[in-house]
């Protein structure tokens, strides 16, 4: 047994690549294999489009403005539905969270409806609202509604009783208690709910466009691509959808962080 201390870690090839670059290795490898496959003709399927074609199509679609107009339509519906669902959710969540009676009367029914897989609502909604934008927006509102209600109720319930006692000692009125203690105390949870609602609404937007095929939307890119066996369009669609999802998530996180800056690094204590 050598008296050498632990073997030199640099012998491990994986640790030699500096940290910031490591995340790029796998994607680069995939693109490389893809390029190689096209070059060497591993497959004759028309689905194996060369990398360059995908990039060219992407550029063309963006330049012609088609991507933006379709995306714009999707986002518009998304944000309207989200706004409706989230506001309704805040009100409903506040009622359920503050009133024990309301929670007992409405809670069980709400939790039962919540169990129904979101997309199962679409066919019903399509009968009641038609196949156009109205049904889509209704569906998006529903998607945003549930997480906001749940998180708002949770937030209100978890306001520490200790802080409420302070409010009692300082003779807060009911309104002051609500606006100065309960609401700020529930804010972290409420923001989390709104963040979730934003994500679910975007998921629902895409689903609505598939199932209620009418009008403009980024889903069309994917549907058209699939129907015409155009892999480049489909890949472009995938990238755009992923990018928008990422952007929405990022925006929501930033807003959350600013609004809850008072928390410091760890969870607030009282």
């Amino acid at each position, binding site marked *: 047994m050598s008296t050498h201390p632990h073997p030199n870690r640099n012998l491990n090839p994986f640790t030699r690549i500096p940290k910031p670059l490591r995340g790029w290795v796998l994607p680069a490898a995939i693109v490389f294999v893809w390029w190689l496959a096209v070059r060497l003709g591993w497959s004759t399927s028309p689905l194996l489009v060369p990398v360059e074609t995908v990039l060219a199509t992407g550029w063309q679609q963006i330049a012609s403005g088609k991507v933006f107009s379709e995306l714009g339509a999707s986002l518009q519906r998304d944000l309207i539905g989200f706004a409706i669902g989230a506001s309704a959710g805040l009100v409903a969540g506040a009622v359920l969270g503050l009133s024990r009676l309301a929670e007992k009367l409405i809670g069980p029914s709400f939790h039962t409806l919540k169990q129904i897989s979101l997309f199962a609502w679409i066919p019903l909604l399509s009968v009641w609202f038609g196949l156009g934008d109205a049904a889509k927006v209704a569906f998006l509102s529903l998607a945003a509604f549930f997480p906001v209600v749940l998180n708002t109720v949770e937030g209100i319930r978890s306001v520490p009783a200790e802080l409420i006692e*302070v409010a009692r*000692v*300082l003779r807060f009125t009911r309104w002051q208690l609500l606006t100065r203690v309960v609401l700020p105390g529930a804010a972290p949870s409420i923001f989390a709910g709104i963040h979730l609602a934003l994500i679910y609404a975007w998921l629902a937007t895409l689903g609505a466009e598939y199932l209620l095929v009418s009008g403009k939307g980024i889903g069309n890119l994917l549907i058209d691509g699939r129907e015409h066996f155009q892999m480049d369009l489909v890949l472009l669609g995938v990238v755009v959808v992923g990018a928008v999802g990422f952007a929405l998530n990022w925006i929501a996180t930033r807003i959350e962080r600013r609004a809850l800056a008072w*928390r*410091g690094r760890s969870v607030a*204590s*009282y």
Partner: protein
Amino acid sequence: MAHAATLAIQHLHKQYTVRGETLPVLEDITLTVQPGEFVSIVGSSGCGKSTLLRLIVGLEADYRGELLLDGQRIVGTSLDRGIVFQEHRLFPWLTVEQNVALGLLNAELSEADKRQAVREHIELVGLQGFETAHPHQLSGGMSQRVAIARALVNRPEVLLLDEPFGALDALTRAHLQQELHRIWKAEGITMILVTHDVEEAVYLGEKVVVMEPRPGRIRRIVPVDLPYPRERGGASFGRIKDDVLSEFGGEARAAAVLAPAAPPAPSGHADSPYALPAGARFSF
């Protein structure tokens, strides 16, 4: 100087009903606190001292007996009675300034007067310069000082403190005890301190109320006739402290855990009335 009030507790009884059974918590508590007095209450867990405080501040109700502030029966909470809890209970989303200002939210003062009072009390607790800090940026001791400022800013007639320094380290505790004494002298309001730290009780109080548990009763009231500021290491301080501690000696003897015979008490002869009975050990 704030107006100080007389607090009269007469034959106070309190019980809880849990699952059909009644649990007596306080039994026949009678105590009078003079205006501007500093009273310490000591006792081990379960002696109801926190409940007593909560009854006085109005967070609990439903008792038998009389609770009077300046002759008026105590009903619910009031800005006349302030309290500092063991946890600082600051609102994490507000700055130090805003937290202290909460105490004046429902006070009938002009905005300018309120701002002035907030400023004065932040100075009083020695936190000038920290007005715009958030609680998560403060240490435990600093947070507790903000809590004290918040409780005092509306000049209550009596300030209750429920083990305010229990969650702090020994050095901060000692420092804050000095601060509290200084504030008491400056403001002159009645203060009632509940603690399980006998030294703290003797250091701060003009009299020490010793309570015993199950059910909570006043065992004895030990007057502390020493001048301020008190010397923790002094002989008379030590005597009074031992006197109070001796009240807990008998309890320890009745407890299940018996220690082997302890060496003679260091302060005085073995037959001094203030020495601990041999064979007794206690812990809080």
